[in-house]
Structures are given as C-alpha cells and as structure tokens.
C-alpha cells in the first residue's frame, strides 16, 4: 500500500477540450478549482455505451472522480452539473463559449489557472443567461489578463504613467494599454482609440459586472470593442486565437443579415 496520498480523488471541473488518444480513449483537458488546468484520460469514451461520454463535452461543468496514475490521471466517473444548454442552442453564445474556453486554454499551462475556475464558471453561467454578452465576454477577457499578470493600462500612459484623458488617447496593442500624446512618438505601432471604446473598457475593468452590464452597447461599438480586445488577447497569448476570428465573422454576418 502506497503512503503517497489518496489514489482516488473527487473534484469539480470545467471541461476545456478533448483530443483523440489511444484505442477508444480520449485525453480530456479540464480546469479544476484546486489543481488548475490538467489533462486526464477518459477510457472507453468512444464506445457507444460509455457512461462518461455525455458528461465530458467541452464547456461542461461537472463532478469528477479520478484515479491517480503514473502519467495522466484517469477519469473513473463523471456527472454533469450544468451543460449550459441555452448557450448550446445559439450560434453566437456557443461560439462565445468556445472562445472563452480557448482563452483559458491558451493563457494557462498544466498545473496553473486554478484562480480562473470561479471567473470562468461565472462567465459560463452569465453567457447561458444571454444578457449583455459584451459585458460578459470583455469583462472575462480583462479578468483573465488581470489574473495572469497582463492587466492592460487603461487610465495611465504605459510609458510615462501620466493619467490620460479618454478623448485624446492612443492605443498600443503590443504595449498593452494607452499612450499619451507626448509619448506617442516613442511607442511604435499605436493607433487612436475612440473615446467611447476606452470609457466602456474602463467600466468593464473596474465596475462590478452587475453595473457594467447595464451599459447599452450598439453593434458598431461592440465591433470596435471586439477588435481591440481580440487584438490584445492574441498579442499577449503570442499565438492565434482561432475562435476570435470565427466570433468576428459570425457577428459580422449576423449584423449583415439583420440589415
């Protein structure tokens, strides 16, 4: 009998993704409140009578029982707590769900990200309610940047740290914040950021969700917010975030079809 601790443990988890593994097994990437992101194995999940299959789809919030193994822990039991069904039935919300999962996946490595569990769970619940997607998504993007140490500077110039008025602000995606008029010549690749975009981002960053969700966002403003935030998320992740492009395409198409 080993004295190295329990061989079986239970945890709540949010499924971030799946990938094919050997035989009928899959590797399931989960985010847990204690261990953060981890890969685990679901044996036999591809078999028609698998008791795990329906409980381990990406975006599922579930209770898991895992057995400690030498490499990847093995999922013995899974029970769905919520599948966020409303989000699963709406293209915009489902793509947004896929986007937030991809963000968590890209901004964490194995064994990190436990402090993202509650914000992610709250975001999935809000997404499921479908009220003010803009505040939900951009609030989560700013939250993830804050937790992972990339908090964008939306009040102070990233170079001289002076307070910048929202009317005259320049934006540096690579620098991660705004640049004052005096410093714009020394920071490469800046562009003007519209006053109302900056004001909304400041609100999303500092107000509680209940208040920021009351801000009315029209489609043109949302388009600009998405472009700024997607650019920032890709720049800090230092790799492409494919679902961000898909989200923009779907928003654009939905907007066009609504005239």
């Amino acid at each position, binding site marked *: 009998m080993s004295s190295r601790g329990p061989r079986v443990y239970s945890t709540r988890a949010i499924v971030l993704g799946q990938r094919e593994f*050997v*035989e009928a097994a899959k590797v399931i990437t989960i985010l847990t409140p204690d261990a953060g992101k981890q890969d685990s194995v679901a044996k036999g999940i591809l078999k028609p*009578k698998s008791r795990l299959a329906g409980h381990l789809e990406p975006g599922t919030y579930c209770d898991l029982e895992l057995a400690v193994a030498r490499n990847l822990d093995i999922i013995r039991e899974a029970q*769905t707590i919520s599948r966020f069904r409303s989000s699963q039935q709406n*293209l915009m919300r489902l793509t947004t769900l896929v986007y937030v999962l*991809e963000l968590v*996946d890209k901004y964490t490595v194995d064994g990190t990200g436990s402090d993202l569990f509650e914000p992610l769970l709250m975001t999935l619940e809000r997404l499921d309610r479908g009220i003010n997607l803009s505040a939900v998504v951009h609030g989560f993007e700013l939250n993830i940047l804050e937790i992972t140490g990339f908090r964008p500077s939306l009040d102070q110039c990233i170079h001289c740290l002076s307070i910048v008025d929202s009317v005259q602000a320049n934006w540096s995606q690579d620098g991660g914040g705004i640049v004052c008029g005096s410093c714009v010549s020394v920071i490469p690749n800046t562009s003007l950021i519209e006053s109302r975009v900056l004001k909304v981002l400041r609100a999303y960053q500092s107000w509680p969700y209940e208040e920021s969700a009351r801000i009315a966002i029209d489609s043109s403003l949302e388009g600009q917010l998405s472009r700024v935030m997607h650019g920032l998320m890709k720049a800090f992740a230092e790799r*492409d975030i*494919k679902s961000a492009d898909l989200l923009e395409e779907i928003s654009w198409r939905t907007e066009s079809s609504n005239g």
Partner: protein
Amino acid sequence: MTFGNQGPILGNTNPYGGSSPINRLVSAFHMLPGIGPRSAQRLAYHVLRSPASEAQELASALLDVKENIILCESCQNLAIKSPCNLCDDNGRSQDLLCVVEEPLDVVAIERTGDFKGNYHVLHGVIAPRSGVGPEDLKIDELMKRLRSSDDTVKEVILATNPSTEGEATALYLAQLIHSLDLKVTRLARGLPTGSDVEYADIDTLGRALEFRHEI
C-alpha cells in the same frame, strides 16, 4: 514522413535497434488513430508471422487506396470515380441532402437503410482549439451545390455529431443555409439503445424528454 525516426517505440528493451524494419513497422502502425504501442506491436508481429502474400496484399491495398481514391466533386465523399455511385444513383431522392462530418458517417447512415437522399461530407467540424475553422471544411462546396441545385434540394439535414463542436458547426451551417430559404433540420437526440437512464447526462435526458413521441 519518416516512420523510422520516431524514436524507439519498443522502449529501451528494443532488441532490434531504432531503425530496424520491425521497429519501423511498429512505428508505422502506431501512427494510426486509436493504435497504442502495444497494439502496434501485436499488429507488426502478426504481419511478421503471416505469409508474404498477405503482407503484399496489405501493402498493395494501402498504395491502391492512396493512388485511386478521389473526392467526389459533388458530395465530397471518398470515391473511385466522380460523381460517385451514390450521387449517380437516380433512385435517390434529390430533395433531401444530409450533411455529415466524415465519410464513415455516410457508411453508418447507409447501414440504417432508412435514408434515400443525397449526402455532403464536410471532412471535419469547426474546432478552433485544433485550429480548424470554417474555411478548412467543405462548406464553400456545400453552399455552391445548394445555390446551383435549381431548387431541387428542399431540405438539408445537419447530421454532425451531438458534441460541442458538432453543434457549433450545425448552428453555423444553419445560419448560412437559412439565407437560401431552405428547410434545415437536425438529427434528433435521445437515449441510445441499451443505455441506462440513470447514467444518461442531463443534456441527453433533457432532449429525450423534450422530443418524446406518442406510442
């Protein structure tokens, strides 16, 4: 593709050396989906014990499939000619089009014997985590096919898997196809035969209740 340079699949106990023909064959089998190192070893030793004619038949079948299988220009399914036998079959209903993820899904639906319409194979689903976007699938071909069908297609059945990625792909396609004023349907969802209600996930059980039918 260099099977022989994948490292010693047989581990440190490999008595044949990293690039021996046996290890190369094990590595080649190991590259196949769902084949782990032990299964790869079993298959390799089976080939080794088999008569040379069987090994030749296997090698010839592998080459044959790579050289002679093409994509049907209409349904995008794997075929030996284009249009394929299914698309060429005048007995099939032209007003039903079933959109599936993979060629094997066509085989599965054909096995039921309940569907007599045509197919369109996407060759995947939208899976941003794996870097697969709509542009990587046969979606443009599907839309071209529907636009040029002169109203013969009346209903498009979206038969992607009931997974998160399959649902996202179905919703994405539904939005595109609705703009053509066509009826779009989705495969029903419920409990598989032989399963346990007790162990069903809440999504499946919820949908099974939602789409219950009178008997």
